[in-house]
C-alpha cells in the first residue's frame, strides 16, 4: 500500500515536470525568446 503512494508520487513528479516544461516553453515562445537547445545563448 505504501508502495502505491510513492509510485503515484514519482508519476506525479514526471507529469508535473512535463506540464511545467510545456508552460515554460509556450511562455518563452510567446515572448519570442529561444526555447530548448537554443535556450542557453552563451
Amino acid at each position, binding site marked *: 500500500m505504501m508502495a*502505491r*503512494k*510513492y509510485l*503515484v*508520487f514519482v508519476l*506525479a*513528479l514526471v*507529469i*508535473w*515536470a512535463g*506540464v*511545467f516544461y510545456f*508552460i*515554460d516553453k509556450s*511562455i*518563452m515562445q510567446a*515572448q519570442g*525568446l529561444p526555447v530548448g537547445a537554443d*535556450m*542557453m*545563448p*552563451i
Partner: protein
Amino acid sequence: MKYFIAALLALLAVSLPDLVAAASDALPPDAAPQPSRLDYPVIAGISARSLAWSMAQMHLFLAAFVLAVPLFSIATEFMGVVTGDDRFDTMAREFMKITMAAYSLTALVGGGLLLTLLVFYPHLMGYLVKVFRGQMLIYALLFGLESITLYLYFYSWDALRRGNRKYYHMSIGLVLNTVGLTLMFVANAWVSFMMSPAGIAPDGAITGTVWEATRNPLWNPLNLHRFLANIAYGGAIVGGYAAYMFLAEKDPVQKAHYDWMGYTSNFIAILGFLPLPFAGYWLMAEIYAYSQQMGITAMGGILAWLFIIQAVLIGTIMLAANYYLWSGLMRTDRGAQYGRYVKYIAVVIVGGFLVWVTPHTLILTTSEIQNLGGTHHKILGPLGIMPAKNTAVNLMLVFTFLSFQMFYRSSREPVVPWAKSANMVVVALYVVGIANIIGAGIYGYITPTVYKVGASVPQVVTTLTIIIGSVIIDVFMLRGAKSEKVHWGRMTERSQYALFVLPVAFTWLMGLMGYIRSSLRTNWHVYTVMKDNSPENYIPTLGDAGNTITGITLAFMAVMVFVFWLSRLGQTRQKNAEISA
C-alpha cells in the same frame, strides 16, 4: 433593476462627460499654464506640499478603507446566504458598522484636500478642470449617490435581512460597490493623467475627449493595483479591530466571534495581497513602456532605496500573516501534526525576505566603493539582481499559501479513498513548481536582460499554477470531509499582535508608495507638460519622507481609534441603560 440602470447611466456619464456637460467647443486650445515660482501663493509660511501631501494621503487611507469594506462585506453577506450560517451576516454588518463612522471623515478630508489644492495650486487645478471638464461635476454627483446607497445599505440591514428581501439588500450593496469603484476609477484617471498625460498636444493644449484623457497609459494598471491594495488594506484594518476586541473581551462566546472575525479579515488581507506583486509588476512594466526615463527614476535612481524599505515592510507583513496562520493551527487538534513543518516555512520566508532587502545598485560614497571594490558587493551583489528577487518573492508567496493550506486542512479530515495519492500529487506539484521557480531564476542569472525579464513570467505562472492546482485538488479531496471541531477563541494573545502589524505596516507602506508614485513625476505637475515651479518641487529625502509618512500614519491611527470607539458607543450606552433600569 432601476439601481442598475442608474449605475449604468452614471458609468456612461463618467466615460463620456461631454454628453452631459458639453463645453469643449467653447474652449480655445490653450497650452498648459506655466506658472513661475512667484505665482504660487505663500500663506502664513505653511508648507503647501506637506499640507497637500498629508491631506491627500489621509483622504486616500480613509477612502481605501471605506471603498474596500463594502466589497468584502457584500461577499461575506453572500457567503451567509449560501451557507445559511447567520454568523457571516452578523459579521458583514459589523464590518459596515465600522465603515459608517469613517465615511463622513473621508468626505471631510476630501473637502479639505480640494480646498488645499485650490488655494495653493490654483494653476494646476485650473488646468485639470479644463482637461476633465464635466467629469468633476459627475464625480460630485457620484459622491452623493455613494452616500445615499451607503446609508441605505447599512440602515436597511435589519429591515431587509430575511427571505427574498435579502436580495433587495444585496442589490443595494451591489450598486454601492459599483458606484464606489467608479469613484475610485475616476479619481485614478486624474492622478494617472498627471503621470502619463493623454489626449493633449505636447504643449498641453487639449486636443482629445475627456475619455482619451481618462484612458491614459497608466490608468488601468493603477486601477488594478489600487483595487487589490484596497481589499488587502481594508482586511488588515478590520483585522486590527477584531484583534483588539478579542483582547478586550472577556466573554468566551464573544472572544470566539472576534477570533473568527480576525481570521476572516486576515484571510481577506492575504487574498488581496497575494496578487499585488503581479499588479505592481504590470504597473512598473507600463511605466517603463510609457517612459523609460520614468521607470529608471523609480528603479535605479534616487528612489531605488525606497524599494528596500518597501521590501522590509512587505517582509514584516508576510511574516506577521504567516505567524498568525501558524498560531491558528492550534485551534484544531489535528493542527499539531502540521506544526513540525512550520520551521521550514519560516526559514524560506525569512531567507526570501533577506534576499529581497539586498539592494542592487548601492549609492555609495567614493571611499565605500573603494573598500567594496565596486558598486556591487562581491557576495551580496548577485542576491540583489532581478532574478534573485523574483525567485525570492515567488517562493515567499508559494510558502505563504502553503501555510494557509495547512491551516485549511487542519480542520478537515478527507474521507475519499484516494486521499493519500491525491496528497502525493499536491506534494509533487509543490516540488516541481518550486524547482521550476528556482530553475527559471538561475536561468535568469546567466542570460542577458531581455531573457531575465522573459524568465520572470514563467515564475509568476508557476506560482499561480501551484495555488490554483492545489486548490482544485483540495476541493475534490476534501469533498464531504469529516470536519474537525475548530475551537475558535483558542488563540494566544501574542498571535493577535500579528494582526496589529498588518494595519500599521500597510498604512505606512501605502504612504510610502504614494510618495514614490508622486515622486516619479520629479519636477512636473503634469509630466512633460506642466512644470512644477513651486519652491518645493524637489524630491524630499527618505528621512524627511519617512517623518511625514509616520506623522500621517499616526494621525490616521488616532482617527481609527476614534472611529472604532464611535462604532462601539451605541452598545456601551445600551448596557448602562440596562443597569440603571
